[in-house]
């Protein structure tokens, strides 16, 4: 079981993910530099939080063209599990692996706090360790996390059960309180909250452990 962790210039949660995986759960990992193309031997890929390429143009817009992500798209299309956290979620929407877009928070403030989330795992492989309707506490830290999608597409997401994580108290103006979206196949999950920061008891909670541990079983 080896987890690939993508590293862009400007990523800043890559080591947090490594600690959560290796330090807290005993999952081995390997960093994937943005110019790497070799995903051999990996069982899952995480695109971590940060400010890839300075978030120039739009969050995730430049990262989308990184060589490593061409391989990640192939990996995802072949059914490989891919997780995008925060900036990684933004990258997944720019890539087209997940629908919608993430925009400036409604009240313009950067939010940095613990968020309460309701989980509806459906067929999402990353969330299979959680029960339907369970309440989770994950930290959030973002300025551009307001999920947006065309009005006629939201009912499609809802009908497919793709809205797998919702805020109990919407911190950013996301439509339908969306905090995380999964693809219909269940292998690609994007979320603004940080499960990797809820894995070490020293940081106040371990609700995120089951998300990364889903890879083990």
């Amino acid at each position: 079981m080896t987890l690939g962790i993508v590293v862009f210039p400007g990523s800043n949660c890559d080591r947090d993910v490594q600690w959560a995986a290796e330090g807290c759960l005993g999952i081995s990992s390997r960093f994937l530099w943005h110019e790497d193309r070799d995903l051999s031997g990996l069982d899952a890929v995480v695109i971590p939080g940060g400010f890839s390429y300075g978030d120039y143009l739009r969050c995730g817009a430049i990262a989308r063209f990184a060589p490593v992500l061409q391989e990640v798209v192939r990996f995802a299309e072949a059914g490989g599990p891919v997780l995008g956290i925060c900036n990684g979620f933004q990258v997944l929407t720019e890539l087209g692996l997940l629908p919608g877009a993430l925009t400036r928070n409604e009240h313009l403030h950067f939010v940095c706090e613990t968020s309460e989330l309701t989980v509806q795992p459906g067929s999402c492989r990353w969330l299979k360790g959680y029960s339907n309707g369970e309440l989770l506490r994950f930290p959030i830290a973002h300025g551009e996390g307001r999920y947006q999608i065309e009005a006629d597409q939201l009912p499609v997401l809802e009908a497919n059960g793709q809205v797998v994580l919702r805020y109990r108290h919407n911190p950013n103006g996301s439509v339908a309180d969306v905090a995380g979206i999964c693809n219909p196949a269940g292998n690609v999950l994007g979320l603004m909250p940080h499960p990797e920061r809820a894995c070490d008891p020293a940081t106040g909670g371990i609700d995120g452990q089951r998300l990364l541990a889903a890879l083990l079983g």
Partner: protein
Amino acid sequence: MPLYRARVLVSLRPSVLDPAGEATRAAAGRLGVSAIQRLRIGKAVEVELEADSLDGARAQLELLSDRLLANPVIENWALEQLEPATAEA
């Protein structure tokens, strides 16, 4: 008072480095659009405002652009468009 519609274009002065433009140019190459010789990112600001005349609107827009929308140390601005707002637009 009549309503006017304007667009102000704010661009970096030519002497100022534009890292966002350079990063975007590099990404364009990865997309296969590699002949770009120059790419600079600015802002287009769309404004609707009430004024007693076209000249009055222009005066307000010049003040707005020079003091708020652009920083003259690093940016130029241009009033791209100024016209009476039509009802249907």
